[in-house]
């Protein structure tokens, strides 16, 4: 688990029951101010329930959530001011234009005329909605709708953005656009807590990753720590000049390294947990032993593989 210097989101021993079903079980994590954190888990893992509790839409059965030091139960109004919520599903209104929709939320957040107009212009410009101002909102494409939903989330300029599966159902172009918007928001110092099924995408966007499975947190750390986490193996791609046979012989003699795959100019090696220093030492040893190393590359494991491995390694909950 990560140690936080300046946590803005603190979740402590959180639980949520729906009748006899325990949707969230003893969840604890914290997110540092100004970071982009990914929240990953399969359907029904408890992601949305946890997020809904964070934005005061659900009440925890037990435990606590603090955003910027304020408890969601004690100060829901303060939390709503600080947090912007973008749900996975976004309903539209009939007979309402894009501008009117944002204007409604501007009014709902208590902005007066000039200030509201300024906020609306800022948000529409940021989300590139200005050309669509007079379009009926129920005539927008999925990508435009997501931008509108993000615009609504930003209307009251929240410190923390909680985005539930924002890229779901978007085409590749809209997905890239959305990813860029998230990056821009991160640059503006917003703390973003984002859930998704698309792990590789989260890996690119996020500084931290929180994995939830069956209502429990199974991993919390940086993307690198997950892909290189202890107990998992590392793959090294080695290319040699000339005949690769000396490499194979060298590998046969090595005790902690196994041959994963051969190819015409080298091999793929499988080693245990390997730090950067360990990798450098391995390369030095190969060169000193006379292997004509031409290329030495650590193959990053895909986030999906790491996630699957991690779930496999997680012990089942106690009955």
């Amino acid at each position: 688990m990560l140690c936080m210097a300046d946590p803005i989101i603190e979740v402590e021993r959180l639980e949520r029951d729906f009748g006899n079903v325990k949707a969230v079980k003893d969840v604890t994590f914290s997110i540092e101010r100004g970071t982009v954190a990914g929240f990953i888990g399969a359907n029904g893992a408890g992601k949305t329930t946890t997020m809904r509790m964070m934005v005061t839409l659900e009440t925890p059965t037990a435990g606590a959530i603090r955003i910027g030091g304020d408890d969601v139960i004690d100060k829901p109004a303060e939390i709503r001011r600080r947090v912007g919520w973008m749900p996975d599903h976004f309903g539209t209104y009939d007979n309402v234009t894009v501008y009117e929709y944002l204007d409604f939320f501007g009014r709902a957040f208590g902005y007066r005329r000039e200030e509201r107009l300024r906020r609306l212009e800022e948000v529409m410009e940021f989300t590139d909605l200005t050309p669509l101002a007079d379009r009926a909102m129920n005539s927008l494409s999925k990508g435009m709708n997501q931008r509108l939903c993000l615009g609504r989330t930003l209307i009251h300029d929240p410190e923390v953005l909680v985005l539930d599966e924002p890229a779901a159902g978007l085409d590749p172009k809209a997905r890239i656009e959305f990813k860029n918007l998230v990056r821009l928001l991160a640059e503006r110092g917003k703390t973003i807590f984002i859930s998704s099924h698309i792990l590789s995408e989260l890996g690119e966007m996020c500084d931290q990753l929180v994995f939830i499975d069956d209502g429990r947190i199974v991993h919390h750390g940086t993307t690198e720590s997950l892909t290189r986490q202890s107990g998992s193996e590392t793959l090294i791609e080695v290319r040699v000049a000339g005949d690769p046979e000396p490499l194979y012989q060298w590998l046969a003699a090595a005790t902690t390294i196994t041959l994963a795959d051969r190819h015409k100019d080298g091999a793929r090696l499988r080693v245990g947990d390997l730090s950067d220093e360990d990798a450098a030492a391995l390369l030095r040893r190969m060169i000193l032993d006379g292997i004509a190393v031409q290329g030495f590359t650590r193959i990053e494991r895909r986030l999906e593989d790491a996630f699957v491995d991690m779930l496999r390694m997680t012990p089942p909950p106690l009955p």
Partner: protein
Amino acid sequence: MISSATHSDFADWISPVLVKELRQGLRSKLFMSAFFITQLLMIASVLMNLAIASAMDSTVGEAKGFTDGLFWFLISLPLVLGMPMRGFTAIHSEIKDRTIELVLLSHLSSWRIALGKWTALIIQTLLLVCSVLPYVLLRYYLGGVNILADLQSLGLLFIFSCALTAITVAMSPYESKILRSLFVILLFIGAWFLLGSVMVWLTFSSVYGSLPGSSRLQPWQVYIMMAVFVPAFIILCLEMAASRIAPAAENHSLRKRLLGVFLVGAAAILDLTGIGNKNAIIVAAILLIPLLIDALAEPAAFSLPVWKRFFARGLPGRLAAWVIAPGWVSATVFSVALIAALGAIAAWLGFLGSMQGKIMLVSYAGTLLLPAAILRLALPGAKNFLGFYIALQFFFILITLLVSIITQSLNEPFTSWLAPLPMSALLLSLFNNVPGSGQPTFLLLNSVATGASVAFLALRSLMPWRDFSANLRQHPAHNG
């Protein structure tokens, strides 16, 4: 840049929900078609009026009565049917599309949302009312009708429309289609019957002073009662809607129950000062029915933010929780207390001097509490409690009707079989169908059924109460 026209159409002081609903509502096909159809129907009706006014034969009187009836029927269609019906989708569509959550996360409270939705519908109804005013004037100038009576009727129609819209908005958060359909049927049969009665009564009162055989209420007394009860009822309906969409951390039960106390208090003042002429207590008893049913149907869900507020105040807080905390547990205590207060006022006014009055009071309590007790016993985990509750009441009404029909056809006093059913006792005593000799038996059996319902609900409520206390003990951090 955004054009200035788009952002200056509504002033800042207007409720955001009202702005949004008006933008949506005034552009909706339903409103547009209602508006234009009303104009067409009004033109047709006035033309018929004119044709009859210019005719000089003996059938003029009958024909004028027909066109008058047609005119009011056509006006009442959009006002008492079309516009209130739109209330059914007011909140339901927002729940279905999950847009309500986003609105609730802004600075808008659930109450302001419900009020904004209702107000938008009422403003549209008012537009329709204003649009028919020229036709009312035309009828006066060309058709020779009593314009004051017409304006009074139009005003009454509008007030009924306001109340009906409030009811449909209150029903709109419910998901059950059966429940909503049942309500539509009941609502409109009841409303049209009531509207017809009041309009006939007021018209006769205006012309003849009072209606022969009616209670001695003057129109001004009716207006005062309406001024007290109609707004209270509308607020109650909107509060019911608000409580259905509010976050679990809000206690709306307190506000609804305070409205119940207000209704009983207002009835007492109106009747004891002679303004209500012993009718206000009856009106209050009728208006309390939806309030108490709504309270008894509240789930006994544990909401930490709500309960910690009570428990943080020590013994007084815990005692208050037994009456005003959300959920059917406290609703049972509240219902019994409120009906007892109603009974005390009824006794003061002399209603309980007769055996029939006593039967009505006890069966009124039993009618509300027995189905709740049955359902808490048979279906403790029922999600659609209100639907089952209303279905059970329908079942009791059906039994009463069947037995009454058989009894009348056979001329046998089978109705005594119905004595343990409070709903049957209430209906039979309302229509004076309880034979004098059987009245003590009716009262006794009804008291037993009502008492048993109260006792069972009290015992059953100990279980969730114990769970709440245990839950609070588990969360010392939130225990005040």
